């Protein structure tokens, strides 16, 4: 049973560019959450998708947007990249929206903005 997968593993972009990160949830999961983990920090919640809709959003600007597809996979898009967007981006999947449900994390995508 495949766990949460993310692509690409690493990515290097320059300021002002746009980037798309991808996530496939664990089999049987229908909810995807995205987190940003800056170096030496804990993960910060970006947003969550369920039934192809954004359900919750953290304190991130509109440059961060996402999408969920009918097969439950998800994309995170970041426009007008800033140096401060350099981080590990983690995708987590779970089943439904019930609080306390375990979230399973992928290995992350390391984004470097030069």
């Amino acid at each position: 049973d495949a766990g949460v997968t993310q692509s690409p593993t690493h990515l290097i972009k320059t300021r002002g560019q746009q980037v798309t990160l991808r996530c496939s949830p664990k089999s049987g999961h229908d909810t995807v959450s995205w987190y940003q983990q800056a170096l030496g920090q804990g993960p910060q919640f970006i947003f969550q998708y369920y039934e192809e809709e954004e359900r919750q959003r953290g304190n991130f600007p509109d440059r961060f947007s996402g999408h969920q597809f009918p097969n439950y996979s998800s994309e995170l898009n970041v426009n007008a990249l800033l140096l401060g967007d350099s981080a590990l981006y983690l995708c987590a999947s779970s089943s439904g929206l019930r609080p306390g449900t375990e979230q399973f994390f992928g290995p992350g995508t390391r984004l470097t903005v030069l």
Partner: protein
Amino acid sequence: AQSVTQLDSQVPVFEEAPVELRCNYSSSVSVYLFWYVQYPNQGLQLLLKYLSGSTLVKGINGFEAEFNKSQTSFHLRKPSVHISDTAEYFCAVSATDGQGGKLIFGQGTELSVKP
């Protein structure tokens, strides 16, 4: 709103010694509590969680944590650590009445186990 404070950024310990990683939280609503571990270049793995019931929670790899509501703490303990426990540990909370269980993480504690 919720916040999580991990009181130690780094904890060095010798192999087979006991360890405690401290976590305090602040919240205006009831929360669920979690501990995650992150090995180098990997994602996060759930060690244990407290939802309700007994305040002493046992997790994987011999870890346990105790929920103390009056002190708003959820400290993680292991009686005897191994070299393989070297990793970053994160405490997290989510509101019990929040849709979807958004996780709020602490800054992390780096556990370094020395031979």
